[in-house]
Each structure stands twice: as C-alpha cells, then as structure tokens.
C-alpha cells in the first residue's frame, strides 16, 4: 500500500495537479521541480534536546542491555544510538540471580538478572574516561533507601555522566524497585528529593507499567524535582514454565516482560504521563521499528528506548530505526522530532 495516498506531500499534490493538466509543460513543472529539490535538500532532522542534553537522534539504549562496559557502549554509539544508559549500579557489588536470567518468547523477553553490577566504586573506574564514548551516557542507579541512592550519586560524582536515572520500578529484585515499595508517590517523592539535593545533573525517573494511575506517579516525580520520566520498566513479573521440566525456566521463577508484548501498554503509559506532566518522556517498551518510535513520540515521548529490539534486529537497530524514521518523516512532511511529540492527543 502506498502510504503517500494517506498523507499527500507537497510533491504529490503537485504531481496530481500535473496529471490533471494533461501532463502539459506548465508552471506546475517548475513548482514541482523546486518542491522536489527542496524536499531532497532538507532531510528531516532527528536532533533532540532532552533536558538540555543534545542528542543526534532520539534512540537511547536503556539500562540492563550491554551497559556493563565502556567498550560496549562505544560500540552502541558506533551503531547509531543517540544516548546510552549503563547497567544499573548499586553501592555494593551484586552477583544477581542465577541463570537462566533471560529467556526470549514469541512476544518478547522475560528477564530476572537481579541487578548484577560491580558496585559504585568499580563503575566509577570503568567509566572514568567516559568522554571516549561519543554520545551522552546516563547512569542508572539503584538503592533500597533514599540514602543509598545519594551514596551512589556521590561515588559517581567525578564521572562525567550526562544524567542520572532512578529505576524505581524493577519487578523482580528483592530490596529494589517495586519489591521495596518504591512505586508509590510518597516513596518516589522521598527518593527523588534526596537525589535532587545531591546532584545538579538531570534526573530521569523510570516508572513501572504496573502502576494503574501512572500519571499521578509521574507528577509526584516531577514535583520532587525530576527532569524527565522514563516510561516504562518491564511489566509483570511474568512466568514461563517448561512443561516437560515442570519448572519455571528463570531461576528466580518470575521476571519482567519486555518486547512486543509490552509495547501497546508502554505507549498508553506515555500517553497518560504526557497529559499529567510538563517534563519530557523517554518512551521505552517494545520499540523495534521507526514506525514504533514515531508512534511513541506521537503519544508524547521526546526520546525512545531500544532494548529487546537489539535481540530481534541486531545492534545496528539504532541506525535502522533512525533511517526508517527519516524516510517516514520525509514522506509525511515532518522536518523534526518536535513537530511530532504528543500530536496523537486531542
């Protein structure tokens, strides 16, 4: 199906007029020529400004994917991501859950890695020369109490991260996120306020799709000083049982659901949050094509997270999505991302 029939561009309108003027050379030829060349010259601009951080495109690697080392984030940057998030870091090192920790299924992925990380000090060492990575890097930090978050922020203060992300929403690790009661407006306010006092960096708060009135929670984060909302973390937890083994496949039995199964829920969450807050939203959940990314932006996102899609399309998914966005935007006469943010709202 020709998408142009639904969204006629200037060029197509002129082509149609030309057709009905019996293809005789006329003023429309000149107009067509000018319009077409203009169209070629101005490729859509994917740059965004996220809380003062300049991104060459809106795709962001979310926490938990590949973010264990500087070397892998360099490679993510080489593959076209606009920004990248490190694997969530706690004050003390954590080994995480036993294997299996990640398992794909027909509609995405189930994971319960359990926040394995080498601790704040080691993370500060690994990312000491962060400027070697050509894109902005976001530090995802975790803790049980508000003080823990502040301690991690302090340990990372010498490292030049572009922003701090607080995932107050993990569904499968005791002592953290939902299992520590961090998904309530009160707890979110406490943690965000404490971190706000400890850093001048932009704070992103990552929310759970499980929260029924997610707009209220986003508002609590905004009121406490958050600069952006990341929506959403994984859904659930869910479970996959191997029926021959008669046992859940993940060692932790349950895990967060990501990928295609999560996408419509994530889009709705972003839509709801956009109505509730003024701060930008990073829409994350099941995005694997340029069309998905644009859909999320129309729901209200300024940037988009791409995680499980890496398994589906490879690490160059960032570049692929950007190309697909550019093509669609050209065909539909959008020049930049800002023009599309939130336009699905009444």
């Amino acid at each position: 199906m020709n998408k142009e029939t639904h969204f006629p561009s200037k060029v197509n309108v002129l082509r149609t007029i030309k057709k009905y003027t019996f293809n005789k050379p006329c003023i429309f030829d000149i107009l067509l020529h000018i319009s077409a060349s203009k169209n070629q010259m101005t490729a859509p601009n994917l740059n965004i400004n996220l809380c003062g951080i300049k991104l060459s495109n809106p795709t962001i690697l979310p926490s938990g994917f590949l973010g264990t080392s500087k070397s892998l984030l360099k490679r993510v940057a080489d593959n076209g991501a606009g920004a990248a998030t490190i694997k969530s870091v706690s004050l003390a090192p954590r080994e995480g859950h036993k294997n299996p920790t990640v398992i794909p299924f027909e509609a995405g992925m189930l994971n319960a890695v359990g926040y394995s990380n080498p601790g704040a000090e080691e993370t500060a060492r690994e990312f000491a020369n962060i400027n070697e990575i050509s894109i902005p890097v976001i530090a995802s930090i975790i803790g049980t109490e508000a003080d823990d978050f502040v301690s991690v922020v302090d340990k990372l203060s010498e490292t030049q991260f572009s922003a701090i992300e607080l995932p107050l929403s993990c569904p499968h690790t005791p002592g953290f996120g939902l299992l520590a009661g961090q998904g309530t407006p009160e707890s979110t306010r406490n943690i965000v306020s404490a971190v706000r006092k400890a850093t001048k960096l932009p704070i992103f708060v990552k929310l759970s799709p499980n929260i029924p009135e997610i707009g209220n929670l986003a508002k609590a984060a905004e009121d406490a000083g958050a600069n952006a909302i990341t929506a959403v973390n994984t859904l659930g937890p869910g479970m996959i049982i191997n029926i021959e083994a008669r046992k859940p496949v993940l060692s932790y039995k349950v895990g967060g659901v990501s990928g295609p199964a999560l996408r419509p829920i994530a889009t709705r969450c972003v839509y709801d949050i956009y109505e509730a807050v003024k701060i930008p939203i990073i829409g994350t959940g099941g995005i694997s094509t340029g069309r998905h990314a644009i859909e999320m932006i129309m729901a209200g996102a300024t940037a988009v997270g791409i995680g499980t899609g890496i398994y589906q399309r490879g690490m160059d998914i960032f570049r692929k999505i950007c190309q697909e966005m550019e093509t669609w935007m050209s065909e539909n006469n959008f020049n930049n991302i800002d023009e599309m943010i939130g336009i699905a709202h009444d």
Partner: protein
Amino acid sequence: MTEELYFEQPVMMKIDKIINESDDTKSFMFRHKLGYNPGQFIMVWLPGIDEKPFAVSCFGEDFFGITVLERGNFTKLMHKMKPGEQVGIRGPFGHGFSIPDNVKDGTGSACIIGGGCGMASLTVLIEKLQGYNTTTLIGATTKTKLLFKNRYKDITIFTDDGSEGRKGYPTDILEDLHNKHNYNILYTCGPEIMMTKVYQFCNKHDIQCEASLERYMKCGIGICGQCVCDGQMVCKDGPVFNSQALDKMNDFGSYSLLKSGQRVSLKEYGEWRGC
C-alpha cells in the same frame, strides 16, 4: 536453521549414554538433531539449579554430546545423573570456526592446538578436518587430565609434568611444525595464556588464527553484556574470534568479568572459576 535444529528456549532432552573420559570428566550423549557448527556452544539447564554454556564435543546426524569436567556444584550434580534423566538444552549459539578454501581443496594446511578441557571445543572440528592436511596437538597439566587422547590417531601429546607424551607445551614445537607444513590457519582452545601464545605466533608468521574464548555468560544471546571482551560479546560475536578481531581485543589474555561484572585479571577470574 529450521526450528527443530535450533532452540530459543530450553528443550528437555534425555541423557542417552554417559561415557567416562577421565577421573573427573564425563561425556553425556543425547539422541537429538542439532544444527551445530564446530566452535558454537549450547546452554545446558538443570531445572531449579543453574544454566551453563558447553561446547558440543560429539556430533552426528542424529546425536550430539557434551563433555563435563567436575568442578563446581552444577557439574557435580551433572556427574551424579544417570541415562534416562533429562536436562534442558537451548542453542546452539555464537559463531564457530571457519575453514579456509585452500584447506578444503587440499592445497593448504591447518594445525589444531587444544589444552586441558578446551579440547571439548575442538573435537567436532578435528573430525570435520579429518582427511585434510592437519596437525593436532593436545596438552594437559598431567596424564590424567588429557582428554580424547584415544579418540584420534596421529596426534601429538604434551603434559606439563612429562607424565605422558612430550614434556612441555604444544606451543613449544609450533616453529618447527610450521617450517615443515607452512600452515594457513591455526585453531586453538584452552587456557588463555596458551591461546595468547598461539595468537602471537600466528601474527609473527602471518598465519590466520582462530581462538575459542571462555567468559562467564548469562543471556547467551548477545544482549546482557556479561561476557564482554573489549566490545565483543563472547556469546554472540564469538566464542571463536579470528586474528583481526583478536588484534582489537586488549582484554584477550589479560582481563575478564566476574559474575558481578567486575573486570579483573585473568588470574583472579581463573581462581574464581576454579581453573
């Protein structure tokens, strides 16, 4: 790969046969087809216990097997298993060994160098290369640790203590062998210190090298970043890497990540892994 030859989620398979390879090593055979290339690996799941990567060490049209050294809790439990019991298998994953055209058409030659339990990653390759111009060298710390020494003819055995075969390391005689055979490619799997020597030898003599690396793994499918080695994911980009890839991997031969993701020296990593 068709659906029945590759498994995205673990599929329970019955142990068909168990072979004692040495005091502390057993092979477990499964009567099942698998779309396997030499050098790839599979994930083996003991429900409710853990999941670990293993090379396929025996391979045929309708069967495959893995070789398990008794080392930690997982492998101890495997060693207690009997034929008829089941384990979960997913995979195979990663990139395996490549065979250059000149080796295939008989004008070129190859050398395979295995050390310790690294031999388990090379057996299917050795079998695939039978009938071609190849040399196989196997090494171990001592006689009882030698794997698959009776499976093949025309192999040269080395032990660190001289309890069997030549005393020393397979790398000791590479220079002489290369003068004689003029190798096009060297394949290796074993202790990383040995593989580093093989890689350096290859660079010096402008021979292609392919080494199979080991790192602690989690997802096995290239998304979690646990098994990273200088920007390369051992589970997806490897486990077999060629000279061009190894040239860029400074961590090869020196660093690895612990379960927490802490990057430590290979010595410290080895102490944790018990090897």
